[in-house]
């Protein structure tokens, strides 16, 4: 009893002291705001590129676009200028922000937008988003992106988490504290012992522990762990997830700006943690296709193509350099009839 009483008392005192220190150090307000604070500094890198290059078509997606799609080959085969935006680690929240600020917000907009996605990504607003803040969202969001705050962040914080974010400063500042501890350990020893600068350490981590140096099993497991939430029973319920997702917003923005919108479901080699295609996925895709057709957007699927064999993949999502040509050709063959029909 005495031990527990001592513990409670000490916990109370240290909590107050640590809270005061955290509030001072990170200039945080008390009670804090729930979710990350968005500022008005916003990237214009893609908008500038689109303005200067004036492409007829933009291909948007995550690292799959960056690594699997050869934009130049796609452009020459389709006879259209193509600009590709493959933002590694991104998902529908970031895609919505890019569509809003960089594509629909560009002075000259592309005629067609192709979004390359996997399975339920379009209706998973917080997929790949940390509830404590996301670097990609910070880059593309402005202060008036409350819809991102609500759907990508606040929706995934439970009531207890909300309370703690508001009233426990060392909980709401956990991202900053963890980063500070990690940086001190990462950079401190390297600079002290080896005279290795921050850049030297960061480059080291990127090159030495990069995906290209990992075993295929490791990459596979990482993909499985990231993609697992895409196949939960909740994620596969299209109608329940639609309204809280960014899909209606993306469709609306493209319609308002007369941008032809095409969604292409990419082929993935293995399904996260399950022996075959998850049960319920086909029903989900049917509902998605129906929704897109009803709202003036097109839906294409790379999954039926026999050319996308396992041999061209380096992991469940990405293809090899050789596979890139095959992947691009499959994408071209899917897009070509649709584009010629719309011309």
């Amino acid at each position, binding site marked *: 009893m005495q031990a527990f009483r001592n513990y409670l008392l000490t916990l109370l005192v240290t909590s107050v002291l640590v809270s005061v220190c955290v509030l001072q150090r990170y200039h945080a307000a008390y009670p804090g705001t729930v979710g990350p604070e968005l500022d008005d500094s916003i990237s214009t890198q893609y908008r500038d590129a689109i303005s200067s290059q004036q492409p007829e078509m933009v291909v948007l997606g995550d690292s799959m676009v960056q690594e699997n799609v050869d934009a130049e080959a796609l452009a020459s085969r389709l006879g259209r200028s193509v600009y590709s935006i493959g933002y590694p680690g991104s998902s529908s929240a970031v895609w919505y922000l890019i569509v809003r600020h960089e594509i629909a917000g560009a002075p000259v907009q592309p005629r067609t937008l192709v979004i390359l996605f996997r399975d339920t990504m379009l209706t998973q607003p917080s997929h790949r988003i940390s509830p404590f803040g996301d670097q990609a969202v910070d880059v593309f969001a402005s202060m008036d992106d409350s819809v991102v705050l609500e759907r990508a962040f606040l929706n995934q914080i439970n009531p207890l988490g909300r309370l703690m974010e508001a009233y426990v400063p060392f909980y709401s500042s*956990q991202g900053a*504290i963890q980063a500070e501890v990690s940086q001190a350990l990462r950079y401190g020893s390297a600079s002290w012992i080896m005279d290795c600068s921050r850049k030297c350490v960061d480059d*080291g981590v990127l090159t*030495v*522990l990069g995906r290209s140096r*990992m*075993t295929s099993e490791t990459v596979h497991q990482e993909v499985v762990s990231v993609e697992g939430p895409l196949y939960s029973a909740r994620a596969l319920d299209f109608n329940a997830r639609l309204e809280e997702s960014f899909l209606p917003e993306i469709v609306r923005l493209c319609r308002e700006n007369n941008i032809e919108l095409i969604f292409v479901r990419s082929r993935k080699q293995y399904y996260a943690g399950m*022996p075959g295609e998850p049960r319920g996925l086909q029903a989900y895709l049917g509902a998605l296709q129906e929704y897109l057709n009803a709202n003036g957007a097109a839906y294409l699927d790379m999954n039926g193509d026999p050319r996308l064999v396992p041999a061209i993949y380096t992991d469940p999502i990405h293809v090899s350099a050789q596979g890139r040509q095959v992947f691009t050709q499959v994408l071209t063959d899917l897009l070509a009839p649709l584009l010629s029909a719309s011309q």
Partner: protein
Amino acid sequence: MNFTSLDFLIFFLVVFALYWLARERRWQNALLLAASYLFYGWVHPWYALMLGASTLADYFIARGMTARPERKRGLLWLSLLINLGVLGFFKYYNFFGPALVSSLNSLGLEADPLLVRILLPAGLSFYTLKKLGYILDVSNGTLKPTHTLLDFALYVSFFPQIVAGPIDRPRSLLPQLEATRVWKAEYFHRAWPLLVMGLFKKIVIADTISSIVSRVFGLNHPNLVLILPATLGFTLQILADFSAYTDLSRGIALLLGFETTENFKNPYLSLSPTEFWNRWHITLSTWLRDYVFFPLRRALMRSKRALPDWVIQSAPPLVTMLVSGIWHGAGWTFIAWGGMYGVLIVLYQLAGLRGEWKPQGRIKVFFAWLVMCTFIAFGWLLFRSHSLAWAFQALFSNPFLSTLEEQAVGLTTLSLTIFYSAPLVIKLLMDRHLRPDSYFHAFYYAAATLAVIIFLNASTSDFIYFQF
């Protein structure tokens, strides 16, 4: 359901409240059984179905052993066949999976490697040993089978233990299930330090260090500069992770009025391999000792053909440690890991350094500890590696050919390992030199609680031992 998830917190609070409100033992056990099956089948309901079927089989086999003693032997074999068959199928199917894929490919059939991958149900290895322990005890006549299916089913599926132990023996847990339990404040006072330490070790230490350790162990061709610090990191990670699970399991069981067995007693302070296995995963070690080591030694000693003494002395530890390796996983790395300990135990025995051996003098103790620590770390390198070739290639690479970037990553890994092992060393010193109700302890637990809140994340990774 993971002990560190919000789902589990809500689940446990509901179970805890209903459990102590129920008061009557039978209702309490029924509630715990329902909760255990819900817990176990949370992600994959078929896990619970399989558990239920195998529990029923062993319950009736044990009853049959007492009802028809003349059939005891046959029934024992039946139980061994069912339990080891199921365990072997799920555990070793993947071992032969790649061979199956290449055979299919050679026949012109395209086989997706994941299609031939059977997912090992979490905790199967643990509850199989629990059931086997029960059947073997009943078969030996050292335990009377329980007449209540409810109690037996709960003994097997008890949710604080089902996924990763401790592998409590029927003689220790069944009487507690059969006894009336009334809430005592003592349960809480003994449980809270275990819960705080369990959360701290898992969330702050194991999960943090695992991020860099798993990257290095995921490399195609790491070199010595990378693998040595990562091995030390994994040595810390596996202790923190597994002992965290045990602490949480014991703390949760205590809150329900159960005393479960301690699994770790500062294993990295061991001076010999035998001592290590007396301190590491104690419930597995004692299980293997009682059901593999002793029976094998007895059989060898009573063998009709007089066997040389070295065979009688060497074979039991070697076989027991190989069984331990195979139990941990299907792969040559696990077999080598178990085999290494078997060989070490035999070598220490030959050198006259048996389990009770203690060197005289601090310098000798230090060197004995250093040697054992090196073996332990080397063992973890084998355990964590993809293959033996991978491990030896990394170990025998030339460290002088490493790049500055690799040295920086190696140093970072080492810094993280030292930093995150410090709290465990401090705790060890405090436990040795200070009273448990001292303010230092209170401050330590308070700091650990704050650290848990700071490191609390939405996505806590699974405990390592879930996969065994």
